């Protein structure tokens, strides 16, 4: 006992007390859970119910602000360019595409990632023309690295966007070629390291319509993509049109007995294949969209990198129908969506 009374004893006690306080501080969780707080109940995207007094981690809600990229708008938006006629009667379609590589975008709720963009979005605008049109793309590189635009299709070697890299900080190049062949094609940056330039978001869809036109339909574009946010050459997120689970929470509204045409492009990096499965229905599939006769009537199609095609179908029965990667890992990481089929006599797209 007398030990405690001395200065030495006090010091010893102080050391021991300090030691144990430190151990307890680092050992026990520091939780400021307010026990009086009423737990809130949430219904999550998987159908699971969560009761918590804290926050909910679920890829549904975004951080208040509207999304920088709107998959709703992208789905049915086609860019036909500034149209004029050449002296020989050919239609000229001019586009201005600006590349940037410093944008930080919320690609899943709360997840911010440096995307590289054509005209500020991933994917870039859907460029659409009719076979035989002259396409002129004024390309400006406002990024901090060299970029190009490489279109799939038929064109001269110097318009291929591979060897003529466009310098950073305002470099310019004009791509000019005749639209063709008929089909759905990707375009993307072709600067090395290629995997990085593509997986960061420098890609888009290029559609060539036949001269005689297409049968009227409710048309939409789906780019199958993903993001490797931790740079381990494996995707952390998968999606149709960039935002994981987006169409699951915002179902794509379509009408019964209306022709639906989906231009699908698989641009997914890192994974060998991707696929698409449609529920409650089958579809005609036109690989690359180059022939007018479908190659198959199915409900699952498989894509390797760069593969694409056109799906055509219509729903007889109203209701909610999933579409997702039948590679279920991708589905569980965001590549899942819904069609909400409504019974309707009048079509918003005027096609019945």
């Amino acid at each position, binding site marked *: 006992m007398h030990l405690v009374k001395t200065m030495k004893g006090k010091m010893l006690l102080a050391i021991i007390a300090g030691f144990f306080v430190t151990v307890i501080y680092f050992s026990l969780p520091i939780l400021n859970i307010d026990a009086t707080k009423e737990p809130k109940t949430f219904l999550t995207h*998987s159908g699971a119910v969560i009761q918590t007094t804290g*926050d*909910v981690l679920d890829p549904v809600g975004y951080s208040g602000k509207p999304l920088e990229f709107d998959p709703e708008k992208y789905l049915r938006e086609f860019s036909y360019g500034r149209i004029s006629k050449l002296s020989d009667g050919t239609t000229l379609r001019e586009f201005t595409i600006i590349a940037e590589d410093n944008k930080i975008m919320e690609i899943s709720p709360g997840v911010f*990632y440096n995307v590289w963009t054509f005209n500020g979005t991933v994917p870039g605008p859907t460029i659409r023309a009719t076979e035989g049109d002259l396409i002129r793309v004024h390309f400006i590189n406002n990024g901090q690295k060299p970029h190009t635009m490489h279109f799939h299709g038929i064109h001269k070697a110097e318009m291929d966007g591979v060897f003529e890299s466009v310098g950073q900080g305002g470099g310019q190049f004009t791509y000019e070629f005749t639209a063709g062949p008929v089909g759905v094609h990707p375009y993307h940056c072709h600067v090395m390291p290629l995997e990085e330039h593509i997986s960061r978001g420098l890609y888009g869809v290029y559609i060539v319509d036949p001269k005689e036109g297409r049968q009227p339909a409710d048309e939409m574009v789906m780019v199958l993509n993903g993001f490797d946010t931790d740079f381990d050459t494996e995707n952390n997120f998968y999606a149709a049109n960039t935002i994981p689970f987006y169409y699951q929470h915002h179902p794509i509204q379509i009408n019964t007995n209306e022709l639906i045409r989906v231009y699908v492009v698989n641009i997914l990096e890192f994974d060998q294949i991707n696929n698409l499965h449609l529920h409650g229905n089958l579809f005609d599939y036109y690989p690359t969209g180059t022939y007018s006769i479908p190659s198959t009537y199915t409900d699952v199609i498989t894509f390797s990198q760069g593969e694409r095609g056109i799906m055509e179908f219509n729903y007889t029965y109203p209701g909610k129908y999933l579409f997702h990667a039948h590679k279920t890992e991708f589905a*569980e990481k965001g590549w899942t969506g819904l069609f909400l089929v409504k019974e309707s006599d009048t079509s918003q797209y005027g096609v019945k």
Partner: protein
Amino acid sequence: MEEIKKTSKAKLIASALIPIVMLGLMIAYIFGPGSNFLGLGVALPEITIEKIEFLDSKIIATVRNTGHIDVEVVQADVNDRIQPAGIEPDKFLNRFETAKVIIPFAWNESEPYEVGLTLNDGTRFSKSVIAAIQTPEPNFELVSYFAIIGTYVGVIPVLIGLLWFPFIAKMSKSKYKFFLALTAGLLMFLGIDAIQEGLEISTTSLSGAFNGQLLVATVVVISFLGLYYSSEKLISRTTSNLTKPVTIGLMIAIGIGLHNLGEGLAIGAAVGLGEIALSTFLIVGFAIHNTTEGLAIAAPMAKGKPLIGKLVMMGMIAGTPAIFGAWIGGFIYSPFAAVVFLSIGAGAIFQVVVSILNWIRQDEEKTFSTMSVVSGFSVGMLIMYLTSIFV
């Protein structure tokens, strides 16, 4: 006179404070407004999942921010598949702050799982569990279950080991020295074992922010010095030669007790985290291993009067911490606490080894280089090594 003393004391305090004030000013200057010359490099976020619990149709992960910057947890996954989850108190974690992530998930017993958490910059951190098992909740049944395990592993083997007391008491001096050295060898092994265990937990479960290896070194040294100081105090105050062996025996018992606390922690945690199936075989292994600890307590006291009450008490001091360890490990496991307890145990044991060696040397020969001492020490370590294979 008083006046002079006061000013000199003020000067002393001032001279102690000036460097601290200067340091404060420097830090204020570096971090203060308008200073940006230290904006080099990028501070990377880091979180550590410290614990994963499996309850009815849900998985609970305890996560701590162990990096240099504040982070936001934005997504949870099980086996790398995105799962909705709740996070309490909230998803914003300051440095060293912790949160509980509650994931509704229909898990299957004894299957492996990996729980991952993704931060706002897209980096993912994960922790694996070898086999999922319902996390024990502190009820009477489990408390007594752990108590029984602790008794079998700690208390009973130590008491059995003490039964060697009459055997050691009757032997010749050189043979007795052999057994004292054997005890030192046993303890040396236990000390190294505890350090190795502590380092292992440091690498597997403790965040890099805690500098696990240095934590082990620091705590071992402090524990050694602290117990060395107090045991010297204790021994210097015991005047009679009769109580001295008792004091050494007591120090050995305390050292072994701390070691068994660590062992109990390991067992409790392993059961609680589903990392091992605690088989009867394993308990037998621990029991054989720990019987030798009773011998260690008995040896220094063997030349004194047979104080049966004191012996039993020391057996309890050495053995019962296994029970407390099992409770702590099973119900509130923390890798940090485990490393600290193991290191305290190691320091305590090395202190005891020093005490025993001093005890041996106090004889007329004043040397360690006798056959009985060298062989005793070696045999002690070998016995521990061989019995450790069963664990």
